[in-house]
């Protein structure tokens, strides 16, 4: 097949906050040919369809779409080329990607590649929720696009599965579409969002929160007619509804990382990276929710800026790979990102726990040597947990893996 080839300095895959921030910073720093690809028709990533606040800063709050426009404008103003409707299909070499778009196929070679392909929610099937396969089953991502981008009708009565930040955003979208939220359902024993938000949903919007509860079956032929739920104590009940939204349970969109045979982290399932966001392949970097499914848009943007610094060093001739050791977590911790560490890495880490732990001790240990210890307040699943990078200067790069543990006091 005829496949025209082209070269750029830096190729960024994914025009969400991380990719656009990286491109903006690189272009500002004087990199001549920075190109961002996005397979969607509009740049901006997930914030495009998050029609709620919580973006921007305390002093300058924004909705998701406004934030998406802001980061896009910054990248374009800086001189980065943002091309939408272009899919990066596969690798054509260590630092080259095959793409396709309305103008046809292309191979784009670059001195450095930044993967910023984001994350998605696991759909119903991947959660192995039994039952029939009716219409009316959504993820938050699809729901938000249906309501906010396309003005589509949703249904009349919805159950929202999950009780974390994104679940409450989904409930807001459901209500914005004129649909009643029958209940929110979580397997955990409490909501995992801010107390004010929990109270607002329950008291002001009168949305019942069913804790310790699992969705065990979807019912209905053609259209959803209800969901069966089971409480931890064994009670089951059928909730009549024509819509169900599965929220949260994010997984990275790691197709390109896998097709490129980059080392993946078993916890995040995204590419394994060190503190400077180098992947296992020289010249390939990663940033954003691909690395930690998911953090806020602000975190992704900060990471875009951070990856740009590492890319600039690489373009200036910095060595690869750096000497790093694996950074591992033990249950109840699910993952940590970045997940390789070099002495002197100086950006904080993000982690997730799978279980609620009251006032635990967090310890960082290498080969039996304690590098760091801190006492935390209550840690809650599906919420960001951060760890300082102060201890990284104590890491021995010739030693074994560094382990992070969380134990009750």
């Amino acid at each position, binding site marked *: 097949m005829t496949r025209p080839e082209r070269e750029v300095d830096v190729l960024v895959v994914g025009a969400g906050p991380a990719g656009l921030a990286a491109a903006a910073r690189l272009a500002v720093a004087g990199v001549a040919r920075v190109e961002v690809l996005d397979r*969607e028709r509009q740049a901006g990533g997930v914030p495009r369809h998050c029609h709620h606040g919580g973006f921007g800063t305390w002093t300058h709050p924004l909705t998701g779409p406004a934030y998406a426009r802001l980061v896009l404008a910054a990248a374009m103003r800086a001189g980065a080329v943002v091309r939408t409707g272009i899919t990066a299909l596969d690798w054509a070499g260590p630092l080259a990607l095959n793409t396709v778009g309305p103008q046809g196929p292309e191979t784009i070679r670059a001195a450095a590649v930044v993967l910023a392909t984001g994350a998605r*929610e696991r759909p119903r099937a*991947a959660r192995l929720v*039994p039952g029939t*396969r009716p219409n009316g089953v959504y993820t938050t991502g699809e729901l938000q*696009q249906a309501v906010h981008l396309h003005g*589509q009708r949703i249904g009349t009565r919805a159950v929202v599965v999950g009780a974390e930040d994104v679940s409450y955003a989904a409930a807001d979208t459901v209500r914005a579409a004129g649909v009643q939220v029958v209940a929110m359902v979580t397997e955990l024993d409490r909501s995992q969002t801010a107390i004010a938000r929990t109270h607002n949903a329950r008291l002001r919007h009168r949305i019942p929160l069913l804790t310790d509860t699992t969705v065990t079956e979807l019912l209905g032929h053609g259209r959803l007619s209800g969901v069966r739920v089971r409480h931890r104590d064994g009670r089951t009940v059928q909730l009549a509804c024509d819509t169900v939204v599965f929220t949260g349970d994010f997984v990275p969109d790691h197709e390109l990382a896998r097709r490129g045979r980059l080392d993946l982290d078993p916890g995040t399932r995204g590419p394994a990276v060190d503190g400077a966001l180098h992947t296992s392949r020289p010249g390939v970097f990663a940033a954003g929710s691909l690395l930690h499914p998911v953090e806020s848009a602000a975190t992704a943007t900060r990471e875009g800026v951070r990856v740009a610094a590492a890319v600039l060093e690489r373009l200036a001739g910095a060595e690869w790979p750096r000497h790093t050791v694996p950074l591992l977590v033990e249950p109840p911790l699910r993952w940590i990102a970045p997940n390789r560490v070099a002495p002197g890495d100086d950006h904080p880490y993000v982690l997730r726990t799978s279980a609620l732990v009251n006032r635990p001790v967090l310890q960082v240990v290498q080969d039996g040597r304690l590098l760091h210890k801190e006492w935390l307040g209550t840690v809650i699943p599906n919420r960001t947990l951060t760890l300082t990078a102060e201890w990284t200067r104590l890491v021995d790069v010739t030693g074994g893996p560094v382990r992070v543990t969380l134990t009750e006091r």
Partner: protein
Amino acid sequence: MTVTANGPLPYGSYDVTVVGAGVVGCAIARELARRPSLRVALVEAQDDVGQGTSKANTAILHTGFDAVPGSLEARLVREGSRQLAAYAAESGIAVDPVGALLVAWDEEQLAALPHLAEKAVRNEYGDARLIDRPELYEREPHLGPGALGALHVPGESIICPWTTTLAYATQAVRHGVDLHLNSSVSDVRWRDGTHLLTTSRGTLRTRHLVNAAGLHADTLDRHLGHHDFTITPRRGQLIVFDRLARDLIHHILLPVPTALGKGVLVAPTVYGNLLLGPTAEDLDDKRATGSTAEGLALLREKGARILPALLDEEVTAVYAGLRAATEEDDYRITAHPEQAYIAVGGIRSTGLTASMAIAAHVTELLADTGLDLGPVRDLGPVHMPNLGEAHPRPHQNAQLVAADPEYGTLVCHCERVSRGEIRDALASTVPPRNLDGLRRRTRARAGRCQGFYCGAALRELFERAEA
């Protein structure tokens, strides 16, 4: 070309009416379309072809190596397999000749393999070959530990069951068959040489009747006074894994049938997924197409043994199909000349493979019931959109994209389906009537995100085409 989905059915009488637009009914309708003097109707209860058992099977094009020698099924599978392979090549139906391995996990299963090899020979299939443990693991390095050996059946292929059914229906409709959807048959009366079918869309008259109603074939048969067979829906639950798992296997991994049952298989699909299943549960409810926690747990347990790495992969779909099992181990194809009626019952999972041979067989039987088939013609070929990974997809065809940029604009990113393909499907001879129908025609929304990225955009395209 006539495809109807609402309004009253035509008043005039058909020469032949086929009830049930599954893969078998569509194949029969297509075969009858070769007879230009016949006026033929294909009547379906649901809103699309292939909506029952045909859409939820293991998508294997069998050789028939393990059929009961001498049975009708053995003959029709053997003949149908060759016919369908040729038809698929001509029509653009995705087929991938990956071959199968029947993997033995214990001494009993190992001892059964030579008998299966002999049985294959009796079924006129000579290429099955025993392979030892080292060769098995060389061929399938990701196979779980503990396998003892295998029977290699190189002729087993995988096929796209949706395109097959749709190709038959498309070709039949283009050659004059009337396809009536949303027409559930609730009663049949045979009076003065004419069948009067009471349907949800009014009465339909026909001189000859073919019952290809799948799960409901026994009910229709009873309306005509026969009690030849009873269909017990046998549920098969399957788990579909993401395309990123595809490289884990290189063959269809079949279980060795033993006294304890058939076990589950792991098979690639032409779309590049892996299938794990099916379960086999005899039920009473012909609508019980739901999956269950027990069924999925069982599949995961079996899958963990066959291919441990599989369970780490993302699941893209879970579905359950109902096989039309009867009390006997063979197809139940019976002619009732006194009623100008053919019953096609008990067509099990091999029905996809055998469909064209079943159609030829049923046509012969129709002649025996007094139908004058009239002259024969060759049908103009159909060229179906390729849904398989073995050949280039539209977005991979530079000339096509240059000629029409819509083929380079991907809408469904996981399965890489372009706007051009969606547009074509919406304008096709037998168009989809909902997003599930669109999925079966294009793969749109069949991937790992299940619509997280593309669902709303696809619905937009679909609703715009409807408007």
